[in-house]
């Protein structure tokens, strides 16, 4: 009897996971396609797509290097409309260089960099959007 219940649990979890998995991939793909419109010429993509599933007040982050002499465009998206993702740019010492929270959650922002710096990009869901979970997509473009 116990074995049957365990098997049922496993099957249930597997189905939930599989369903969630497909829905998540599909959701992220759609968001990434929407976000792509913010990184167009004269900006060139850095060739990568940064994604993370977020729940409630969780935040996601990654490190990158911005080279001197270039202008970068950072685009952040979640959901099907703009303004659902709050992104913040820090230097390596965690000084805040920019947050779109103080710019009406702008979906993209440009950064003119005169001297190369290592930085950290942090993203979290906008609590005002009413979404308790979602896929966060960050894209980076540059122009020389």
């Amino acid at each position, binding site marked *: 009897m116990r074995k049957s219940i365990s098997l049922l649990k496993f099957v249930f*979890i597997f189905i939930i996971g599989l369903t969630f998995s497909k829905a998540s991939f599909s959701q992220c793909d759609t968001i990434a396609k929407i976000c792509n419109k913010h990184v167009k010429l004269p900006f060139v993509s850095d060739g990568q797509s940064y994604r993370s599933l977020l729940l409630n007040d969780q*935040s*996601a982050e*990654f490190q990158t290097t911005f080279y001197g002499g270039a202008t970068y465009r950072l685009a952040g998206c979640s959901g099907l409309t703009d303004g659902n993702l709050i992104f913040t740019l820090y230097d390596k010492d965690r000084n805040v*260089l920019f947050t779109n929270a103080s710019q009406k959650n702008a979906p993209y922002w440009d950064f003119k960099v005169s*001297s*190369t710096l290592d930085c950290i990009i942090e993203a979290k869901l906008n609590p005002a959007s009413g979404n308790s979970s979602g896929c966060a997509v960050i894209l980076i473009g540059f122009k020389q």
Partner: protein
Amino acid sequence: MAFKFFPLTRSVCVLSIASLLVTGCGPSKHEGNEHGEEPKDSAAPPIVNINGQIFSIPSPVQTAMLIQQSGASFSKELLNEPSKAANYQTTYDRALNLGVYGADLGYLTIYSENNQALAFFAAVKKIGDQLGIASSFDEKLMKRFEANIGKKDSIISLVSDAYRASDAYLKDSKRSEVGALILAGGWIESIHFATAILKTKPSQEVQNRIGEQKTSVNSIVKLLASFKKPEYDNLIKQFKELSALFENIEMKYTFVEPTTQVEKQLTIINSKTEVKITPEQVQTISDKIASIRKSIVQ
């Protein structure tokens, strides 16, 4: 709480586990871990325990642009042979060389070497097909590529978008390690350009750019190591040796308050980084880069 950007598939696993907890199938009788210790923060969701990390590796195209701006002439000898694409028989070799050919394609396009660029695009397409990312490098893209020959910016944008699409596809299909190898290959090729160019045309900017790779090389080591693939061990070892050569490069960072121009949606980063890299350091890094690249493209 914060966690790193990581492959989506791991998020899915975590959320599957979360669904297990939500449905009451969790370890309700034993709240502690296997050592009998209580969790430090019982309110924290399990997602914070995932330690997958994704690092951003700057585009190889940017380094190629800097090289052209330095006044260096085009040099075909710097590139991998497109005909060698057929020689790469494993996913490991193919992925690394897809990165290499992508950087070569960027270099050729920046120097407007359009006819040669077509041959490299064919190599990229061939390897892309073999790696199962044909949708990113399909016939449609090939036609757009040919139609835009001569429009440098459009070609660079097309190729970069295709690499971004393949990166997204690989992450979604539980093949992030292939994407990581592509990034590593592209990075090696672009630094190979920079170190080789310095031998014929000294440039302080290019020399500094080499020094500025200190963080990127560490990121590549961590990224490759995160997959725990024994077949990557030798490559990781080589990158670790390379990373050690960057250790003594001095980078002095000074924070300066940025200025924002709201109407232009622009922030000017005023902070400064001073790089101190000696010709001897450049030489040892150059030798190591050449050695790693040789092992990739042979």
